[in-house]
């Protein structure tokens, strides 16, 4: 345990030896993934327990409240921040609201439906499912991005292999331990932002060390997958637009 804590602390303080020793370790990927999981579990446990605490009384009420919030501003709820840029005539808005109203009762009726197991089991299992899905999806995104960065790093002359790349980039999660304080108003989001920036710096350091690349090339290797993704989305959109026009 001490060894793991030392690795996490030294990685957080960007000590080069910590990254090189970790990269040369036989269990580099196992250690990286277990650090990732340990932090994700710690950060996720507080919201999970708060879900459990409110298990029985509030679920139906919470869903009803969500529906009512949706009905009070359907355009904003549907479009999110993009609603500010979209002008919808008042009569169309009214039409949307009128069509949505029956669904408020529907949600209440869904909540009253019987099921084979007691409702609190449903809430506990759904909370556990959300919690587990969040961690697994987060790991999936990290792994996909790390593999893409590795490919571009290799293209730029990088020397890492997939095992060391995944094992060392997982250390970016270390500062995210600050997210356990996310529930504190104002302070929580600020700490989250600090953790994200700090994590990014650790990521750059990790990629740079295992690939033996200078910082400039490292940052380029990290930006290229994002640029490639944007180009892909644009090309696909153009393709769909062209096909629609042709059709």
């Amino acid at each position, binding site marked *: 345990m001490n060894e793991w804590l030392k690795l996490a602390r030294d990685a957080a303080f960007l000590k080069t030896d910590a990254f090189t020793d970790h990269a040369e370790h036989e269990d580099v990927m196992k250690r990286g993934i277990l650090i990732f999981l340990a932090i994700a579990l710690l950060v996720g446990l507080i919201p999970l327990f708060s879900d459990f605490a409110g298990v029985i009384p509030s679920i139906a009420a919470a869903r009803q409240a969500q529906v009512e919030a949706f009905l009070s501003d359907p355009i904003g709820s549907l479009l999110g921040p993009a609603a500010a840029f979209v002008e919808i005539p008042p009569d169309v808005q009214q039409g949307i609201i009128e069509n949505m109203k029956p669904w408020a009762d529907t949600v209440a009726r869904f909540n009253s*439906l019987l099921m084979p197991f007691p409702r609190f089991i449903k809430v506990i299992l759904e909370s556990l499912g959300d919690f587990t899905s969040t961690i697994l999806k987060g790991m999936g995104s990290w792994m996909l991005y790390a593999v893409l960065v590795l490919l571009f790093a290799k293209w730029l002359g990088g020397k890492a292999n997939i095992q060391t790349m995944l094992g060392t980039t997982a250390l970016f999660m270390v500062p995210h331990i600050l997210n356990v304080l996310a529930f504190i108003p104002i302070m929580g989001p600020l700490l989250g932002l600090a953790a994200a920036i700090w994590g990014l710096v650790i990521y750059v350091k990790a990629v740079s060390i295992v690939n033996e690349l200078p910082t400039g090339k490292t940052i380029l290797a990290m930006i290229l997958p994002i640029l490639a993704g944007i180009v892909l989305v644009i090309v696909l959109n153009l393709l769909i637009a062209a096909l629609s026009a042709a059709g």
Partner: protein
Amino acid sequence: MKESFVIAWNALFLKAAPYHQLRDSEKPFLDGLKLLLIIAAAVGIARAVGGILNWGISPSPDDVREIIQETIKEQGWYAESSGAVEDYDSVFNEQFDMIFTGISMITFSTVGGSLLNVITTPVTALLVWLGWGLLGHLFARIFGGDASFKQTYGVTALAISPMLINLTALIPGVQVGWLVFIWTMSCRYVAIKSGHHIKWGRALTATLLPYVVIGLLMAVAGGVGMAVFIQGVSS
């Protein structure tokens, strides 16, 4: 059994040693097959239990269908259309039933359907292993690989180890996102690279090409299926 899980566990973390171990074993194909079936059976059981739990926390599909259908019919546009078009009600009911039945087959679990996972998961895993192994072997050999057919199947069986993540299917509604796909692909890359002793670029190409071939075949099959469906609906 324990030995199989230990070797899969080490393969999961992309170490070359377990892949070399299986490649050099006396019966790589049979050892791989055994490992694959043990993991797939465990995941199948997890999916079955998760499916039964999901059934237990879901309302009856008939109740849900009734509520949705009634809500749609309460809407203004439905009344207008129903008044303007003859037989609107019966056509609507028929199409709604068809769509809802299709959706509920995916959304709602049944005890029988959940138990089927115990069989379908290992069978699917076996077919994917055999299909991918064949293509992976062909491409690896084209790019200079030196493993035999049996050895390729042995090492690619180890690449199923990320399927262990699907044990989380015990909890209803868990979504794994990209994780199993990208992790399996990474394991297959290590399997091809370690099993065939080829350089990383060639191993990567030999790993990606089977996905391209399978993707193209699926796209063609999907296109044909869609054409048949559209023709059926329009007629």
